[in-house]
């Protein structure tokens, strides 16, 4: 029996995207990603810009334009397997790592310097700024009128159905946090889409998708239970393109404050 797998709400496939929407979505080059928490760049903007070009030529094939294609590594946000210092970075690039999985690159000193600058600048060759406000005011907004805490959990407090934000400051950038607040529909990652499943036993499960493959799907349901379903046991499976939240009505100052707060959420650090 074939189950019906449908996409609801703004239903579109990649091949049928209208051109206008498409051009907005594909604005995903390295130039667009913003990063500010590095504060005063310790590298010159010339180094960052030069590093951007070297990165595209030498690194992007494996690490990807966003620097996140190798598991456990996200160069843009500074997540590494072993690297801590810039010296570590220099060593891994120059000598390779992981039994040849990361090859050794013979780069000129200014290129090596540029790549490190580009990575440390969060892949932001132009240095555009996202306003980052007061974390204390941001926390109050998060828990109060911003209504974030109605769905999101932080450090063991709050519901689990939306993504837990306890370490969001280590895995997101100010720009993506801002986009998430102002235009959540374009910021929703496909894996996080809301789903509604109906089983052969006529149970309806509403939740957020955690993982999926050809034969199964894993979700956290509205009762905060981890559920794994075999598609063969489903009579319908709907995936929503709509985020569960609306664009925020907070002022730009308030948005800056909330971003400021979110950036302080760094797990157990």
């Amino acid at each position, binding site marked *: 029996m074939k189950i019906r797998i449908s996409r609801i709400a703004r239903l579109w496939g990649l091949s049928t995207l209208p051109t206008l929407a498409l051009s907005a979505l594909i604005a*995903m080059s390295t130039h667009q990603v913003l990063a500010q928490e590095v504060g005063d760049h310790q590298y010159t903007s010339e180094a960052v810009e030069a590093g951007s070009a070297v990165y*595209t030529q030498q690194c992007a094939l494996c690490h990807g334009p966003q620097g996140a294609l190798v598991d456990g590594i996200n160069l843009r946000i500074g997540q590494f397997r072993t690297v801590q210092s810039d010296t570590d970075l220099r060593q891994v690039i120059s000598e390779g790592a992981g039994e040849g999985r990361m090859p050794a690159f013979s780069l000129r000193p200014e290129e090596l310097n540029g790549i490190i600058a580009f990575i440390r600048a969060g892949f932001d060759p132009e240095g555009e700024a996202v306003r980052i406000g007061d974390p204390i005011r941001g926390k109050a907004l998060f828990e109060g009128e911003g209504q974030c805490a109605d769905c999101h959990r932080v450090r063991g407090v709050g519901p689990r159905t939306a993504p837990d934000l306890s370490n969001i400051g280590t895995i997101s950038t100010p720009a993506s946090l801002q986009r998430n607040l102002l235009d959540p529909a374009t*910021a929703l990652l496909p894996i996080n889409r809301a789903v509604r499943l109906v089983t052969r036993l006529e149970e309806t499960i509403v939740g957020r998708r955690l993982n999926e493959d050809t034969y199964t799907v894993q979700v956290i349901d509205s009762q905060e239970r981890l559920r794994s379903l075999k598609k063969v046991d489903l009579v319908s499976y709907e995936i929503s393109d709509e985020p569960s939240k609306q664009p925020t009505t907070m002022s730009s100052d308030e948005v800056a404050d909330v971003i400021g707060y979110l950036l302080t959420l760094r797990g157990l650090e």
Partner: protein
Amino acid sequence: MKLANQIKTISIAFFICLAATNVSAQVSYERILNAQDEPENWLTYNGGYKSQRYSQLDQITPENVTDLKLQWTLQNQVFGAWQSNPIVIDGIMYITERPNSVMAVDAITGRVFWKYRHVPAENALICCGANNRGVAVLGDKVFMGTLDARLVALDRITGSALWDVEVGDVDLAYSVTMAPLVVKDKVIVGVGGGEFGIRGYVAAYDAETGEEAWKTYTIPGPGEPNHDSWEGDDWEHGGAPVWITGSFDPELNLTYWGVGNPGPDWNAGQRPGDNLYSDSVIALDPDTGELKWYFQFTPNDAYDYDSVQVPVLADIVWRGTPSKIMMWANRNGYFYVIDRVTGEFLEGKPYVKVNWSSGLDESGRPIPTPQPEGMPTFPGNQGGTNWYPPSFSPRTGLFYFSAWQDYATIYAPEESDYEPGRAFLGGGFSVLAPAPGAPTIGIGRTNPINNWTNEVGFASLKAMDPQTGEEVWSYDQFDVSDSGMLTTGSDILFTGGREGYFHAIDARNGDMLWNVNLGGQIVMAPVTFSVDGVQYVSVISGHALSTFALPH
């Protein structure tokens, strides 16, 4: 327990030096030539010179395949995608492991007899993973190409090195990742390095001594035919690597090789001309290396559409005429049928969405329709398919391969200068994503969570009819797949995917017969063999090589 009690150490010498030469160690050229007649073995990378990856074995059937039981698992000891293809000879399996180790393994228990380690030079440079795709055998020798562009011969019984010769200059980023092809008394390999501005070639070596017999460049030099498909000195660093094992037709005495992308990869404007023989299939005389014909799939390629797919050969009645054909699902999104006697184009149709070209003319040349800057090109950079080996079943008459559906790339070409031993890519690319910054498909998969989802592309196993060039059926997966194919005499199609499922599918109609989650990406084709009347099927998933059989 009883046997254990009987094992004891005694002080009597056993005379073990009995035979001066072991006749069973010999894998003659005749045996390889007739590999299809000994389906108990898997004698070449693609299971025989026609590269059909079809086995006559039929003990495992659509009816009993659900009874398959795991017999043994061999764990890889290193990081990274395991793209190696096992060779099986008389119950012994030869498998390579990253970066350049070879193991001889008991095919019934998975226990290792010996392991040879070649440590590649530190400056070996590989664009896309320290892969090795397996060995070739002839006589009592095993042959392996290495990441530092050497060819090594080992004693098949002891695993000790017999010779070790240079294939290419490691300082210029030449490498060998393919399993060699043995033809007559020669070992033939091609070189990788298409992302580093090499000038590609195929070269043959005397199997006995390692001495180079011939070397044919995939980019013609000054004075050679088709040199004028390049301008200025572009040909010197024009790429055109050969990194997948070719095929051989003994009646025509021709070997066939798929040639990779021109360099720099994405800036076609920097190298005007057709850039022959990049993105082509070339037919070479195995005795001399002489080029007999070529067919180019993608002239002046701007998309990295390597034609490194396996040339799959078949002798069939094609549209009423007994024909020697070659089938080719190309990375550029078109499926081709070619006359392998002459290289003439017979048929070609898109099998996935294609927008870089609006179709093929009557000679098979694509009509280019480059997309505006910033707009997606279909298929994307990794192609509609890639190097993963297809299969052709003479029983069903169908050609099977893994396609990537709805996958696109946005190219950003840039002028780039060649410097020895450095990437020569001509810009960069991004993958069309459903949300800014969302994860997109990478070269491999190491994350157990599919967070890019099918919205950026998914696998479609396609069964193609070479008579029409059309798809007969397809089987979709949620993630993309780099898995190759195996078909059997009982019409089972074995394959896998990045999700780690090992699938048995009915080759006639695409029905799912059985699958098991092995947990790691399957990025090579399964193989089958038999020992003592029992059929086995082996597949590599993640870091484990698993072997299955029916209860016996």
